[in-house]
């Protein structure tokens, strides 16, 4: 098993319900194939640095998990099919040490982080 981090950008038009459904879907895919989810994070709606499919914004999600290569292949396949996904990227999680506790897939909720706001606070402080 290896640790991975998957970044997903969803269309800005996706509704709140759609976001929840999307998170549930990918958590299911990972957990259903022997993967262990260690963290789900969202940055909310954020401006893109450049247009993707004529969209200027996107909902950012980050999934950190452990799993085997067939799981990664399947996750990537599902992400490519998903029409709500603007872009995705799966990379090895080099910060993970492989012992992070696995979250319960039934209750996992994305934690909201706002790097931009944190940045502003840093400047003020």
């Amino acid at each position, binding site marked *: 098993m290896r640790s991975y981090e998957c970044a997903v*950008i969803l269309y800005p038009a996706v509704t709140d319900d759609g976001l929840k459904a999307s998170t549930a879907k990918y958590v299911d895919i990972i957990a259903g194939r022997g993967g262990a989810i260690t963290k789900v994070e969202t940055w909310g709606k954020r401006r893109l*640095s450049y247009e993707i499919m004529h969209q200027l914004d996107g909902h950012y999600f980050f999934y950190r998990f452990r799993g085997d290569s067939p799981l990664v292949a399947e996750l990537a396949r599902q992400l490519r099919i998903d029409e709500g996904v603007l872009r995705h990227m799966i990379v090895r999680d080099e910060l993970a040490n492989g012992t992070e506790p696995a979250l319960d897939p039934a209750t996992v909720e994305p934690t909201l982080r706002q790097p931009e706001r944190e940045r502003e606070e840093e400047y003020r402080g």
Partner: protein
Amino acid sequence: MGRAARKKGEKKEDKGEKREKRDKRPMRKKKCKFCLDRVTYLDYKDERRLRRFMTDRGKITPRRITGTCAKHQRMLASAVKRARLIALVPYVREYYR
């Protein structure tokens, strides 16, 4: 030529001499900023940090400008490329002329 003008000229000459002397000394070697911070991994999500090592057009600043060591420059390059893929930083930023 007025007195003021001559004075200015003299000053400039002085400065020129100083610069020549300075040029003969070897350039002070820049320290790799990441080595100073003991960075072992550069996160592609750390947009703010990456941007400090990019030009405003979006290019990765070369090592000879920033003084980054080879190891950290490699880390930086891959982090920037990842960040570009998920649109955290631009590939290019075109300016209107």
